[in-house]
């Protein structure tokens, strides 16, 4: 069974972001990079599927500059068999259609039985790449899955809806799934697996070979949300902070009365 996982490298969301007005995005200097959280579930599900069927071949694909290779190695250490870096220094500026188009171009002739993406990326967060990819390939797609089972060419998955309700959906492969938080418990790569991953194939394909579609939207401004004010910010020594907060709670709420 041939499986494709799409993975994006994103900055740690606890970073102090600076703006890069020329690039109309955040400044990439001094950021810690990691695997998009939703894609960790996608990688894990791909590895579990391969383990279940007993054979298979997992390609992890990521579009971006050279630094993404570090994160791709984590996916290889988690159990993917091969990495494909679509080398693109301008990936950050691409809209979901352009990104999905590149992935579709790679996937079209390769007969993947199952494709996983995250439900959204943590930085851009459009949630579009998975369903767009499915449309481009003419495949069925189920988004936001929190449960996954495979049996004889058929998938039984659960989509998460508002309030925690789930919709149960059956679909025949090949198909695309977008993974929601909590789908599984992503494994930590073990030291032996990290060593093994170093020997796995990590191909680089220039983006020009795969990019056939132009984007359809553009970012025209990037800014910090206005601070609405009102809220009090307390900083300082722990004991003094606790006293200050207790005084405020006594004054503004009835919970300490």
């Amino acid at each position: 069974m041939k499986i494709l996982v799409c993975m994006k490298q994103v900055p740690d969301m606890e970073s102090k972001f600076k703006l890069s007005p020329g690039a109309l995005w955040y400044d990439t200097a001094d950021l810690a990079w990691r695997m998009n959280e939703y894609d960790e579930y996608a990688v894990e599900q791909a590895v579990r599927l391969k383990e279940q069927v007993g054979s298979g071949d997992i390609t992890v694909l990521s579009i971006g500059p050279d630094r993404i290779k570090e994160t791709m190695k984590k996916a290889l250490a988690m159990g993917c068999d091969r990495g494909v870096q679509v080398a693109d220094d301008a990936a950050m500026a691409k809209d979901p259609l352009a990104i999905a188009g590149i992935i579709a171009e790679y996937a079209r002739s390769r007969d993947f039985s199952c494709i996983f993406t995250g439900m959204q990326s943590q930085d851009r967060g459009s949630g579009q790449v998975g369903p767009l990819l499915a449309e481009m390939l003419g495949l069925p797609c189920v988004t936001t899955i929190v449960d996954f089972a495979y049996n004889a060419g058929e998938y039984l998955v659960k989509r998460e809806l508002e309030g925690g309700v789930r919709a149960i959906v059956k679909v025949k492969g090949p198909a695309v799934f977008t993974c929601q938080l909590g789908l599984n418990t992503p494994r930590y790569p073990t030291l032996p697996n990290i060593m093994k991953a170093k020997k796995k194939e990590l191909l680089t394909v220039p983006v020009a070979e795969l990019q056939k579609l132009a984007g359809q939207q553009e970012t025209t401004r990037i800014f910090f949300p206005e601070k609405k004010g009102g809220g009090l910010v307390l900083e300082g020594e722990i004991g003094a902070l606790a006293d200050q907060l207790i005084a405020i709670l006594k004054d503004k709420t009835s919970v300490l009365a």
Partner: protein
Amino acid sequence: MKMLLVAEYRDGKLLGSINELLGFAAGMAAEVAVFLVGKDDTLPKFAGRLYLAEVEKHLEYNPDGHKALLLQAVEKEEPDLIVFSHSSYGWDLAPRLAFALGASQISEVVAVEGGGFIVPACNAKLRRQVKSLTKGTVLTLQVGAFPAADNSDTPPTVVPIDTDAAPLVRFQGYEAAAEGGVDLTKAGVIVSAGRGIGKPENVAIIAALAAALGGEYGASRPVVDAQWVEHNRQVGTTGQSVTPKLYVACGISGAIQHLAGMKKSEFIVAVNTDRDAPIGEIADVLVVADLKQFIPALTEKIRSL
């Protein structure tokens, strides 16, 4: 400006989200038509054309069939904007329709400004202004970002639509969220643990503060996903919606899906090491501190009051 708004139907009911879409359209003085796969006994209230497909035939989840139906409505209306709620129905269907139309899709719009749409980025720490380069544009609107319209008394004019497009996926029905256990909606004080607690052992310090305040403890999603806390304590869009007198968010960044479940609390305190965490936007008090030191110190002092 012409808009086609996409209403949602779940478990035999029309969802209230259509009123926010109508509010958005009213704010832009747009002419509206609405699309619904539903039933004629619960229709949205607005003056205009309602493209209605039968839910018995087309099911509540059948994105390929609903896309085919939507394409018919779009062909008749030729709208400038096709507007969905950024919900499990909307973010699933919107990109498929956009692709079929060759239109761009802009996700999770929170405001309209200068011919562009404002969307959040990086867990609400940043905002982008995005402009569409295509003739028609598909939008999904962040839930709660636009005020709901007052219901009009005029009923819509129903235009029935139908298709024989075969579904690619087979919807089998719903599974209810796990029930039982604690009912957070009744708690007067809720102290919630976020990923910032770092390890499962630290749930105890959050629970201890909750007990000292005579309340309950809750959690954000990652803490529940990691099975450090049971699901019925999760606060947010896919958990509980709560309105206690006091909500203390400990090590919670303030993602929109968490805020949706607690922002109506009477008084909100956040404890976070990151002064820029988006939770600061809605907190009455943001304590910039390491919760592992601060919460036990606070609990100790409250106990000895």
